[in-house]
């Protein structure tokens, strides 16, 4: 398995509170991604990073911010969580070549 961990694995929080999810890799891959997975939808990209301090928005970035201060860590922050952000969040990594993208185990977030 690709060396990707996510923390926490489960979290329940209340509307309006800040939440930070962490993705950690040991593969030294350049690209890191945050997706959310909801019933009836394919995985949807929130943000991704193409290097330390280099990030870009995905299709569902509103309400989320990210940071990457080290190659191995990619943080996803919900500044003020809403119930619509209840979801399963997956981190993925990819190297420049080949293109294989590998996923972490996921974080189940519930916003009450």
């Amino acid at each position, binding site marked *: 398995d690709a060396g990707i961990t996510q923390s926490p694995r489960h979290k329940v929080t209340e509307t309006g509170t800040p939440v930070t999810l962490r993705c950690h890799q040991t593969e030294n891959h350049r690209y890191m*991604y945050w997706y959310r997975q909801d019933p*009836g939808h*394919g*995985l949807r990209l929130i943000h*991704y990073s*193409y290097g330390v301090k280099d990030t870009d928005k995905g299709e569902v970035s509103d309400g989320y911010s990210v940071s990457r201060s080290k190659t191995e860590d990619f943080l996803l922050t919900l500044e003020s969580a809403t119930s619509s952000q209840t979801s399963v969040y997956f981190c993925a990594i990819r190297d420049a070549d080949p*293109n*294989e993208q590998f*996923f972490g185990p996921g974080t189940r977030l519930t916003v009450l």
Partner: protein
Amino acid sequence: GESVGLHLPTLSVQEGDNSIINCAYSNSASDYFIWYKQESGKGPQFIIDIRSNMDKRQGQRVTVLLNKTVKHLSLQIAATQPGDSAVYFCASKGAGNQFYFGTGTSLTVIP
């Protein structure tokens, strides 16, 4: 925008039979595709990939076929086993570094 879709949300097959899962993509410029397997409560697991300069690629018990003319991708699983029961979805790499995912086909293997 780009989209990826699967033809069947569910598929049931007898153990030992072959399974075929289909996928369609919208962007003719997509140059790379991946099939994933996702078991309940787990992250997607990479199965096999194919580049757009290929029509077919084989792995262990799996084959991916790519038809660029009709923008169609399929995953064939030979001699399907109970452990193959999962959700399968395809992903296409679009412009830049983004991937687009289908919603998945839930495969059930009947013993």
